[in-house]
């Protein structure tokens, strides 16, 4: 059966339909979901198909997060829609002091099957408070898992794994990728958390990426191929658990690595990954691990400035040239 071409929104909706059909403890809760089936149309058909299982809330991010947690503690499997990832700032206590710690503090008495679903990223001229990529905060928080798909097929397989997982999962999708299309298998499949995908093979440099960074790398790899540089593109897909084995195999082949993400560079996930690579694979490296990320500024509103702050393909190329020059 050939794969259909679906958008990420459609892939997400399809997965949710299948999962909600399968398991009636799954429900969706968040702001302004029902009337328009989610602000990105990501819950298309769900209000009609599963009335009462997609629930509009007041604007109360703190309580929404805690509400998901309380439901997860008592037999349900909530997907909490955070509207914009920027607003996780309003639920950090619930996510980091409660959800991340409760199972541990209570000595493993309880499972917390909860997905915190956050549209993130910039590029929509939405300015500083609606454009952030904050995943590295959660990577630094033991007790949470962090998943960031790029292509529609990953969205479908990973959301299923996240929903079935018994731990709290932060699930980020880039706002600009909802409409982006790609092939999505028709049959049932789950992409286990903690499995990176080598999406393009190459021997000269490893491009380690996720989310919107993946598309920058794909484009960069094309261009590099023209210059005779074969870049391997590793889509990490989940940052925690992290598939360090796949990363290591790639670097053992290429001996050069560039980490690419949209989050700002300082303290971003690229720091963690670069730090680990140089530690664990020191003798394999022929060049420093380079990090490509947004410049360390809030996202400005005006297009020329926003474009300037965000990482782009030429940043990736520059980084690759810097590491392959040696």
């Amino acid at each position, binding site marked *: 059966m050939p794969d259909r071409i679906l958008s990420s929104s459609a892939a997400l909706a399809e997965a949710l339909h299948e999962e909600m059909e399968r398991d009636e403890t799954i429900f969706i809760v968040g*702001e*302004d979901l*029902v*009337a*328009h089936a989610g602000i990105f149309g990501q819950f298309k058909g769900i209000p009609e198909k599963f009335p009462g299982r997609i629930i*509009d*809330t*007041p*604007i*109360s*991010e*703190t*309580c929404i997060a805690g509400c998901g947690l309380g439901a997860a503690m008592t037999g349900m499997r909530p997907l909490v829609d955070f509207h914009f990832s*920027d*607003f996780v*700032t*309003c639920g950090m206590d619930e996510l980091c002091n409660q959800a991340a710690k409760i199972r541990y503090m209570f000595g493993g008495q309880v499972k917390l099957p909860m997905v915190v679903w956050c549209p993130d990223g910039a590029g*929509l*001229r*939405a*300015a*500083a*408070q*609606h454009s952030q990529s904050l995943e590295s905060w959660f990577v630094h928080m033991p007790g949470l898992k962090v998943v960031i798909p790029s292509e529609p097929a990953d969205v479908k397989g990973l959301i299923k794994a996240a929903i079935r997982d018994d731990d709290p999962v932060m699930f980020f999708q880039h706002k600009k990728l909802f409409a982006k299309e790609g092939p999505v298998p028709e049959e049932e499949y789950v992409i286990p958390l903690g499995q990176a995908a080598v999406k393009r093979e190459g021997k000269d440099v490893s491009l380690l990426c996720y989310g919107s960074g993946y598309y920058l790398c794909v484009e960069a790899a094309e261009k590099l191929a023209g210059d005779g540089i074969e870049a391997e593109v590793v889509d990490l897909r989940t940052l925690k658990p992290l598939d360090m084995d796949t990363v290591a195999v790639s670097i053992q082949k290429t001996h050069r690595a560039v980490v690419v993400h949209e989050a700002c*560079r*300082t303290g971003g996930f690229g720091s963690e990954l670069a730090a680990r690579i140089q530690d664990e694979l020191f003798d394999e490296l022929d060049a420093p691990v380079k990090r490509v990320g947004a*410049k*360390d*500024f*809030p996202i*400005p*509103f*005006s*297009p*020329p*400035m*926003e*474009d*300037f*702050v965000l990482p782009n393909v030429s940043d990736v190329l520059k980084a690759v040239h810097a590491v392959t020059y040696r």
Partner: protein
Amino acid sequence: MPDDKKTLLELYRKMVAVRQFETMAGEHFAAGEIPGFIHLSIGQEASSVGVCSCLRKDDYVVTTHRGHGHMIAKGADLKRMTAELFGKRDGYCKGKGGSMHIADFSIGFLGANGVVAGGLPIITGAGLSIKLRKTDQVALAFFGDGACNRGPVHEAMNMAAIWKLPVIFVVENNQYASTTPMEYSCAIGDLCTRAAGYGMPGEKVDGNDVLAVRKAAATAVERARAGEGPTLLENATYRMKGHFEGDPQKYRKTEEVESWGEKDPVERFARVLTKKKILTKKLAASILKEVHSELDEALAFAQDSPFPAPEDAMNDLYSTMEGGSHA
């Protein structure tokens, strides 16, 4: 507070200015000249103008994502406002903020906010600052019915109440928070009843009647200036356009929108003034013309202003950054 002819006409002129500014913004957004997204306050002009008519230039105001009207009513320069919405270099924020993050500290306008209820703790701090500096300023926050359900609103009201801060909380209950009707997200009829839980006065006002708004706001401002503490005003109104420009608005019926259209605060005030023989058709037309010519100027200013250079993004983050690198 004098409500002489001049004052009344000035109120009207401001309401027209807000309405026309919003209309202009909607058009240029649709034309693709305004990046991002914008939230218009058409239908809520009586609230913005009525409230701000009671404020001095050195009083503080914070607002929301739907703050153009408040900013104009507080006395902002239309040219720099328009340029900011357009993302231009001569905008209030040099293009860094846009519609949702615009401010003018020279008139005490401490900013719009992209985070619902984000301004409430800030205005409480401004109120505390006034108290500590022992001035007779007041600090006022506009926010929406939806915002009322966020925790910071609760914390801010309580804090302002116990310290008797010169803060005025103005909730513009326009019946919806994005797609969500106020009755869904709140089990009581009137948001102003929450004031009692903090020990402050709360009042519901016909938010489409600029004079009623002005009267209630005047009382609240007086109270605050006199050191008697905060007030919660609920201006009952309606947003006549979508939540954002382009909103499919599946959540409300055309009849509802139309019925509120009949209560249009600008037209309504025009009728009042006409009846009082203060406004004539001719005068109304000349006010409109005046406003339009101001807006044309603002628009030309915005269109002529250059975009910021990409590297301008690197300015304005820190006041001082010496002795180390931040990146």
